């Protein structure tokens, strides 16, 4: 019984890699969850924001396919942003209609569910590591984040 639970726990803590099909299922779930969050946050009706979400869905799928079939080590994140940037640069013929639709989706409301999943994704390993060397690492991490942020802001400020 004990060994079985142990293997279960081990299995649960192992990293799950999604196939393309599973990624698309996850994407659909995420889009639906975002629509609900968008409705609660921005007050935009679920169906009013649906066309905008379909555009976003299409961009992400194209980006995922590009990263799968053009194996130059470019991550999906980079492909997705490349696709959406190129579609909306001023010279793009589809920029105006896309931007008009996407106004229906609030940027901040899309982040809320991502953070909710992030809190759910914290694993036993991470909790343990935090308990073990929590204090020192916490202080160093805060210094790292603050240092990088201020460092970048100072340099950017000087060169603007």
């Amino acid at each position, binding site marked *: 019984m004990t060994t079985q639970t142990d293997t279960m726990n081990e299995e649960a803590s192992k990293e799950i890699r999604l196939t393309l099909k599973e990624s698309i299922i996850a994407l659909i779930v995420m889009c639906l969850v975002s629509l609900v969050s968008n409705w609660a946050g921005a007050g935009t009706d679920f169906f009013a924001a649906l066309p905008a979400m379909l555009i976003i869905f299409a961009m992400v799928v194209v980006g995922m396919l590009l990263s799968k079939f053009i194996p130059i080590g470019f991550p999906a994140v980079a492909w997705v942003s490349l696709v959406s940037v190129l579609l909306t640069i001023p010279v793009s013929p589809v920029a105006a209609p896309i931007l008009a639709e996407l106004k229906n989706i609030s940027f901040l409301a899309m982040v809320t569910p991502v953070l909710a999943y992030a809190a759910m994704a914290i694993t036993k390993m991470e909790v343990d590591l935090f308990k073990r060397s929590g204090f020192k690492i916490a202080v160093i991490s805060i210094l790292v984040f603050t240092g990088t942020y201020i460092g970048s802001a100072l340099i950017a400020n000087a*060169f603007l």
Partner: protein
Amino acid sequence: MKPESTPTSLLLNWRLHLIVIAMSVISEWIGIQSIPVANAKLLFLPLFYAFILCLFFNPNILKFSEKIITKKQASIAAPIIVIGILPFIAKFGTLIGPALPKIAEAGSAMIIQELGNLGTMLIAMPIAVLVFKMGREAIGATFSIAREPNIALISDRYGLKSNEGIGVMGVYVMGTMFGTIYFALLAGFFASTGWFDPRALAMACGVGSGSMTAACSGTLATSFPEMKDEILAFAGASNLLTNATGLYVAIFITLPFSEWFYRKLSKDNTSTITSKESH
């Protein structure tokens, strides 16, 4: 493999999504709040509450939550974030595209601020080595902001079980757990001080992961509503650039620099600490 443990069935399990939806809706309803601190103020966004609320449902954190959702069912949340950030990146791209001419004008600032990482080391490394007496963990912990490409680099150079590996993983875990929230608070605070050009603060938001960029620039946009589009575009472009160049900055500049800086700081100890790796 049992049918209930395939990724697809885990993805379609309603418990996790229901928790996320319920907490997101509650968080959105609470809305944006702020607390004054001295002359500045701390901004709290719905993403902040959603994170905190969901911590209580995580069975790895509270044993009680296992009655609501099993560890197995919660484990699918990790790959969901990888995908879940993509719709938001797509939305981000549509803010960068129209602003591309403006971003090009700020070109040099945009590229050079990638070196902000060096600021990290100048502050964090001395504290790690001199105050906390950390060994080579300090190199892994402070050479970068510890996102995925940096972990890949350390694992390639030293291995993840090495001291450097433990350092980078520690900061990575902290970043995953609290980085996003911390960046949002940091941005809101600096926005209210008026020390920096909002566009510079926006570019600095791009130094970390996608969700850090989002939370950070979202807070800035709330602080400067009249510059909202520009802020989001600058932050997004900066993050895109970090994704593209971050690894090379780490390989050629920040990691060699941190090796050198570490040797300087721990001069007295170098005779006792002998590094196992050889270049």
